[in-house]
């Protein structure tokens, strides 16, 4: 079958047009994020010197999304792989993309120590309050009362804890020069600005930069487009959006 997809029509220049339409579900928030990441990489003109580490989970579906180097890592280990890559090759711009399962559950210790050591990499954690590739099980980030396949009566904060706040935790141990923020797919202009700052902080300040992105998952939330964005606004109340700054100065 010959593909007639024209890249110039609306895609970022660094996209691999042969892998489109992508493997993501209809309405996936992760592909909205990846699109804006692509535009920022075009904007900063860093396509030739970028390396991206991806994790197990829905983030692995980005394995042929871009026309630059992408490394597939073990579950929760995309941060240490990115750190190692950066240590051996300081001129590269190294990013790591994970889901909330990889970032806050299995790979939390790697993430915390990368922040603690102030390794100069950019980490993006995409938070959709569940383990989506395996069928929408309850995750640490599920908000209290959320109905998932393993919490049919709604998440009970007494037994399962409240929602996990990643950037707030990382802020406590990170260096002063680190950039830590939370964005949401519901505001693409702000998202683009924050992605740009996350990458610029790695390039200019040579320090750790971290961005959590709230993304909808219509397949596992079982929502339509409007319901997805309603739930996203509910998530934004639980996870406040913005840049985290340290209190000193």
């Amino acid at each position, binding site marked *: 079958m010959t*593909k*007639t*997809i*024209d890249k110039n*029509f*609306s*895609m970022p220049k660094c*996209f691999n047009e042969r892998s*489109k*339409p*992508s*493997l*993501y*579900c*209809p*309405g*996936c*928030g992760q*592909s*909205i994020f990846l*699109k804006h990441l692509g535009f920022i990489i075009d904007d900063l003109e860093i396509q030739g010197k970028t390396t991206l580490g991806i994790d197990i989970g*829905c983030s692995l579906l980005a394995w042929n999304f871009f026309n630059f180097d992408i490394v597939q890592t073990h579950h929760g280990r995309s941060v240490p792989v990115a750190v190692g890559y950066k240590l051996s090759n300081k001129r590269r711009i190294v990013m790591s993309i994970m889901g909330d399962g990889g970032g806050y559950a299995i790979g939390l210790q790697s993430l915390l120590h990368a922040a603690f050591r102030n390794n100069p990499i950019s980490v993006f954690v995409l938070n959709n309050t569940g383990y*989506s*590739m*395996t*069928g*929408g099980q309850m995750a640490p980030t599920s908000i209290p009362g959320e109905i998932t396949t393993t919490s049919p009566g709604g998440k009970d904060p007494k037994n399962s804890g409240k929602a996990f706040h990643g950037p707030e935790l990382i802020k406590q141990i990170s260096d002063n020069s680190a950039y830590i923020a939370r964005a949401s797919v519901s505001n*693409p*202009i702000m998202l683009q600005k924050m992605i740009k700052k996350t990458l610029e902080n790695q390039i200019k300040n040579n320090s750790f930069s971290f961005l959590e992105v709230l993304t909808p998952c*219509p*397949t*596992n939330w079982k929502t*339509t*487009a*409007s319901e*997805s*964005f309603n739930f996203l606004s509910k998530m934004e109340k639980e996870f406040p959006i913005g840049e985290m700054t340290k209190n000193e100065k």
Partner: protein
Amino acid sequence: MKNDLTKIVISGEGGQGIQTIAKVLAESFKDSGFYVSYIPQFGPEQRGAPSISFIQYSTKEIKYPRFYKADYLIVLRERAISATTTFINSKTKVILDSSTIRPNVIKQSENKKEAVPATKLAFDLFGKKNLNLIISGYLTKLFSLNEKAVWKIIKNQLQKKFSEKKDLEDNARNAFIYGYEFTSEKKNFSQPTFKTNKKIIISKNREREAFISPELCKGCGICIEKCPVGALKFGDEIGVYGNPIPEIDIDKCINCGNCFRFCPDCAIKVKKKSK
């Protein structure tokens, strides 16, 4: 009860309701006094990926749920064909959806093929979600199961959805009966009508022009939700996953760029006309 072991493969696209059909069939075989095994093919939970289920029923005990050649192969989407051709041998009876698949794509002799244009029927008569009910109705007749008993199982399966809307149940019942009474196409297959347009759809007026690519659009509806003036709505064109895709009313459009900003698949763009 002539054959000892009958092997069935049902395949289609994730989101079509393949596993629902398979569960209903397995339950009905069990209720008719057969031994049954049913397993789905496990993979990522993803819409649009091929979804396959394996069913066996027999008068004797079943030792192992997997098999390599099927007696019946049911294919509902072109995308699922490549994953299921290994199950065909000279005895396999192929049942396909002739409104989405060209019958000559499947390599099997003509008299072993049967077709039900289920997607077209569902779109025209009952709404696209009722595709799996038409197929379950048809399969009920094919395997000579008791129609009333099967409907009872379907009702149990879909209890939650039916309790929310009342007219849904009547519609589903009609779709099931229609499928049960449908005589399949043999040899004279209808042509597939559900094809994705390869060209980018351009609509323009004096000030701006809009581009929508059916080859990229998955029909999620985010642009329709995010349009501030309501210039977008679902139209007649079919997108890459067989869903309807939006069409734009270019005179209402104010060129705000929201649809382009929110589209996950880079399928829509509006720009000012350069003079």
